[in-house]
């Protein structure tokens, strides 16, 4: 195959163009493009069945795309799968663990399979184990470990060969809050000198660790921006207000700064406002002056579902 990629610097670790995947007539991933630089953490966000796992399987060479191209550190995944795979560490949704091996044997096997040089192997394994806080269980059988430890063994397997790109599919599912915090800090650490792609359906997770986010819905990219862009998009621009003796919607809408009012129930309202003009003060003042019986005022905690609703609504409006 012709290898003409001098213009691509090694700083770009992933470059995927127009990825699509069909299973029969069913399109699971539809024309997704993404690019990632070294030192960036990309969050794949989406509800179940959005195509996150399928996209990751294609990026890691486990599944051939129906259309599109993938370059990992400048190496084409379809033309030179072995060379491209050497740059990747992958933790699938179900960690691929051999239960009959000890943790050290298992990570050592992963290192061998990734062609870590013989003289560097022992230290690479030790390093990966220490990284994932597995040193004290190194000689236990993988099958006897708890879910949290198994997840960490899965991560150790993905980083033992020091890949340029680490792909983690829902790395925090099924873990307790402490373990989730540990894994997140581990991911942040990984993101310092390599690229990380992680998928999740938890919005705060993306906000706490990722630099960039891609939101998938029905196999399409509905949002792709930096985390700040995401925050701007959904964050802090909605308040929920509860009033025992509410005025009419028109009165609320007339308050300076209020962009839109929706009634959530009889006594509660959802007030959206534009970026710079927060109407909360005015709202409270009016509520007291005209004794609306204010009993609740909460800035909206936008859940990922709401972001989807907004995104899909935006799509429909645009269409």
């Amino acid at each position: 195959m012709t290898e003409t990629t001098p213009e691509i610097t090694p700083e770009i670790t992933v470059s995927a163009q127009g990825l699509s995947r069909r299973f029969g007539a069913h399109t699971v991933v539809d024309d997704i493009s993404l690019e990632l630089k070294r030192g960036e953490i990309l969050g794949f966000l989406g509800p179940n069945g959005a195509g996150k796992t399928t996209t990751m399987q294609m990026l890691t060479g486990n599944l051939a795309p129906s259309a599109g191209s993938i370059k990992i550190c400048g190496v084409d995944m379809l033309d030179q799968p072995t060379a491209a795979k050497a740059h990747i560490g992958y933790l699938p949704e179900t960690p691929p663990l051999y239960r009959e091996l000890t943790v050290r044997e298992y990570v050592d096997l992963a290192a061998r399979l990734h062609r870590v040089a013989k003289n560097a192997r022992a230290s690479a394994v030790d390093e990966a184990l220490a990284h994932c806080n597995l040193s004290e269980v190194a000689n236990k059988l993988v099958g006897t470990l708890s879910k949290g430890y198994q997840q960490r063994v899965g991560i150790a397997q993905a980083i033992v060969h020091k890949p340029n790109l680490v792909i983690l599919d829902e790395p925090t599912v099924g873990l307790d809050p402490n373990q989730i915090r540990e894994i997140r800090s581990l991911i942040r650490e990984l993101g310092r000198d390599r690229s990380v792609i992680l998928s999740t359906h938890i919005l705060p997770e993306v906000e706490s660790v990722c630099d960039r986010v891609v939101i998938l819905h029905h196999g399409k990219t509905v949002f792709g921006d930096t985390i700040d862009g995401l925050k701007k998009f959904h964050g802090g621009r909605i308040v929920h207000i509860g009033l025992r003796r509410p005025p009419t919607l028109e009165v609320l809408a007339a308050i300076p700064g209020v962009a839109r009012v929706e009634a959530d129930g009889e006594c509660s309202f959802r007030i959206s406002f534009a970026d710079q003009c927060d109407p909360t003060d005015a709202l409270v003042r009016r509520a007291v002056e005209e004794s609306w019986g204010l009993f609740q005022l909460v800035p909206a905690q936008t859940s990922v579902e709401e972001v989807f609703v907004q995104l899909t609504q935006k799509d429909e409006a645009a269409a």
Partner: protein
Amino acid sequence: MINTIAGKELKALFSSPLAWIVLTLLQLILGFGFLKRLDDFMQIQPQLLQAPNPPGVTELVVVPVYATCAIIMLFAVPLLAMRLIAEERRNQTMVLLMSAPLSMTEIVLGKFCGLLGFLLLIVGVTTLMPLALLAGGRLDFGLLASVVGGIALLAACFAAVGLYASSLTAQPISAAIIAFCLLLGMLLTGETASDGLRERGWTVPAALAQVLSPLKNFESFAKGSLDSYSIACMVLLTAVFLVLSIRRLDAARLG
């Protein structure tokens, strides 16, 4: 890299009870048959000595041990091979190999070598029985080498068929049944088709049928004749099923 995968497969085999059960039962059955035949041989030895050019202990005692071993492998290999790919699919561990910088060929050859290594261990342990006879007599080493080589080739054929069956499904038991059916089909082909075809003078179909009958090919080794066509048939059969397995794994990626 093939070594790494082969080593992993051997380790997985020995950490399951199946490998030990197969080794134990095989030794019990072969050991019993061996001693029985040896006993019979001792009784008829005086009469044999009067015949001109009498068959020796290797022909009468040792070769049948390997023939029994071949039949046992027919049943054991599907069970030993079933987990190679099917179980990795079921446990979703196949991803580890598929994501590693390995070609499908390396994965298939590694798994094949792992299983073949175990089968050769069976052959090796079996060979200790005839070698024990050296304590009180002599062996026909030519015939012994021929039959050991034949059973090694037979093991390779069976292992390749078992591996292919395992690549077809994600249920180890289905894989075992498919492998057993394939091997049984080959046994029947060998018993019926090739001779029948040859008698009718259809030499080309007969030659093709012989490729599909590894047990028939093994018989010529058991007679001590190194038939190059038999060797070619067994190597070809092994290669065909290995290539089919590689293609099968590639197809799974393309989905």
